[in-house]
């Protein structure tokens, strides 16, 4: 009985601390330095060529239209090319920036995140919003170390990851992150 009470109080303290920490960090846009975006460096590039990507919201472009710099080849320095190719994204990059959202089936905030990002993309010229189903792209999920849904990446015009956020980002933070990319 006494032990149970102690465990109960301890669990409540842990839960409160965890909840406050989570609320502090959830949806915060964090800048990503060049070359630090991927968990496994360029090693996973071989899976990208000619692969059909499903589960995204936009039609995909032909692989011939990949951004310049992609052809530097695997094994070269990580800062040389884009973190994500058009084939992986399943749609063209925005000319100024791309908002890339990873979603999953059991994700309550994904819908609200979709609305926020679509709204921002809609009111800003040259900004695309792409959504990827995390479950059917586990290779990419592991490479980019996506642990939660939604996870949002802000990509520059060259396809390089500039910012990332775990959890639903605030609209103002998305706009601020876009301002730093362009």
């Amino acid at each position, binding site marked *: *009985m006494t*032990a*149970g*009470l102690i*465990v*109960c109080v*301890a*669990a*409540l303290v*842990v*839960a*409160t601390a*965890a*909840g406050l920490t*989570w*609320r502090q960090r*959830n949806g915060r846009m964090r800048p990503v330095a060049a070359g630090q975006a991927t968990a496994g460096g360029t090693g996973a590039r071989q*899976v990208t060529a000619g*692969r*059909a990507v499903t589960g995204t919201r936009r039609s995909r472009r032909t692989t011939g239209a990949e951004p310049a710099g992609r052809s530097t080849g695997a094994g070269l320095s990580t800062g040389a090319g884009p973190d994500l190719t058009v084939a992986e994204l399943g749609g063209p990059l925005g000319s100024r920036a791309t908002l890339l959202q990873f979603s*999953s*089936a*059991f*994700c*309550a905030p994904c*819908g*609200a995140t979709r609305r926020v990002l679509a709204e921002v993309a809609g009111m800003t010229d040259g900004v695309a919003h792409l959504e990827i189903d*995390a*479950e*059917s*792209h*586990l*290779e*990419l*999920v*592991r490479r980019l170390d*996506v*642990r*939660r*849904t939604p996870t949002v990446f802000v990509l520059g015009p060259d396809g390089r990851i500039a910012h990332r956020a775990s959890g639903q980002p605030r609209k103002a933070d998305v706009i601020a992150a876009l301002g730093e990319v362009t």
Partner: protein
Amino acid sequence: MDIDPRGPRFGALITLVVFAVVLITGSVWLLAAQGLVFAAGSLLGMRRSPYGLLYRWLVRPRLGPPKELEPEAPPRFAQGTGLLISVIGVIGYGTGVTALGMAAAAAGLIAAFLNGVFGLCLGCEMYLLIRRIWPGRQVTDAGRI
């Protein structure tokens, strides 16, 4: 199907109290009952689970309509993880391994607290992590080349 998101939050607050009482009293029967509630939420849906019915009958009429609806699948999945925790706890308390029972009840209490108070669905967060480790029957990226 979309549901009023305040329903699962209300249910999580009741679950929080139940887990606290389980920890303090060590009642295996109360934990088993909570397990049945989780099973109902998982199998029948959030709105037909006992706490969901309580919300619809007693709480919802006193509140206004929800500002927005949310999909039912995430909380329903989380009810399944709650059921798993309850089963582990019942095994612990039932076989005299009280530490196991307490650990399970504490895990359930933390999850219910985060859900009810902060709106963070820990069971839902588990989903992608489980998928990353164990892809199941889903075709992975590598498999689709």
